[in-house]
């Protein structure tokens, strides 16, 4: 189980139609690879975020498969076109079955 998992997202609150906007996301998570051993020599079980999805008004923007080599507190920055006002939904899927979500509204002027 990962503790203190907090998603953070930055999306501009407004944009002009068809504009490319930069979205930044970060989720605090240990991203335990499953390759490490503790002091007694036992394997520390893998516990990572394995998938990250962003949708805009239901349409997929990115869908990322994440692997154990990704560092602690994974950060993604990407560009998206916004044709109309709407909502970005961000979803992170944890190995332990937890799902973390965050959403941001954007207004097209």
């Amino acid at each position, binding site marked *: 189980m990962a503790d203190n998992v*907090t998603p*953070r997202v*930055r999306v501009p609150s407004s944009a002009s139609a068809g504009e490319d906007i930069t979205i*930044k996301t*970060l989720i*605090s998570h240990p991203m335990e690879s499953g390759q490490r051993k503790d002091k007694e020599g036992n394997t520390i079980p893998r516990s990572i975020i394995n998938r990250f999805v962003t949708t805009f008004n239901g349409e997929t923007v990115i869908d990322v498969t994440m692997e154990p080599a990704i560092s*602690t*507190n994974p950060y993604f920055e990407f560009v998206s076109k916004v044709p109309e006002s709407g909502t970005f939904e961000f979803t992170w899927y944890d190995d332990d079955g937890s799902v973390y979500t965050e959403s941001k509204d954007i207004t097209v002027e």
Partner: protein
Amino acid sequence: MLFRTMTAMALVLGATTAQAEGPELVINGEIPITTRAPAPEHMEYVREVMSGWEFRSPETQAFEADDFENPGMIFAEDGRTAFSQPLGDTDQSCASCHESPETLAGARAVYPKWDPEREEVQTIEMQINECITERAGAEAWGYTSQPMTNMSALLASVSRGMPVNVAIDGPAHDTWLQGKEIYYTRYGQLELSCANCHEDNYGNMIRADHLSQGQINGFPTYRLKNAKLNSVHDRFKGCVRDTRAETFSPGSPEFIALELYVASRGNGLSVEGPAVRN
């Protein structure tokens, strides 16, 4: 002739000004940070003090300009969560006495400072533990433990932009002198003092890296090399270890004195923590 001399002088002056104008650090587009300042009077061999930020690459520097990009802020936010959570088994939290972290703005800038009740110089970590044990009656945090470093990062973050201003006169003076003594004493098999690197050679390379002035205005500091927040005393320990010496331990009287002295070398620079360094 006079005119020519004056032109020459103007040129020289112009050149100096141009040199001093490097990139500037503004956090979140609203907190200007002083990363260069005239050296405090007590410093004999340095004219201008510079934050460690000045010595880093543009990429590393950029991390600090935006809280979203600054990995150290994740820990400061954890500290903010802990601020209002009960300490140990008690029903007390930091927020029981201090309404919000913002009410403690400015504290970071004047620590370490003399505590008249205890009659000793206290670092901010000691003050935090005094609150935890004496006010709340809970168990003290480890000096360089994660909750402690998170809390000190939070306290630094609310003081960002304020000038470091630790008092070195009055009752703190003896401790300050002890710290100065340690700063100029050569330690370890390599026989290096703090000054050998951070005063005589700042700006030069140490293997593949630039030596900074060893300023601590940006602590606790997120280091890219170990991907965590590093407290001042842990950093001191790392430096002393690298001289191949037996180090003082974090929280020891020697490191407290050294922290006061090193902090006083940064009087005039802005509080910058949690800073990002490599």
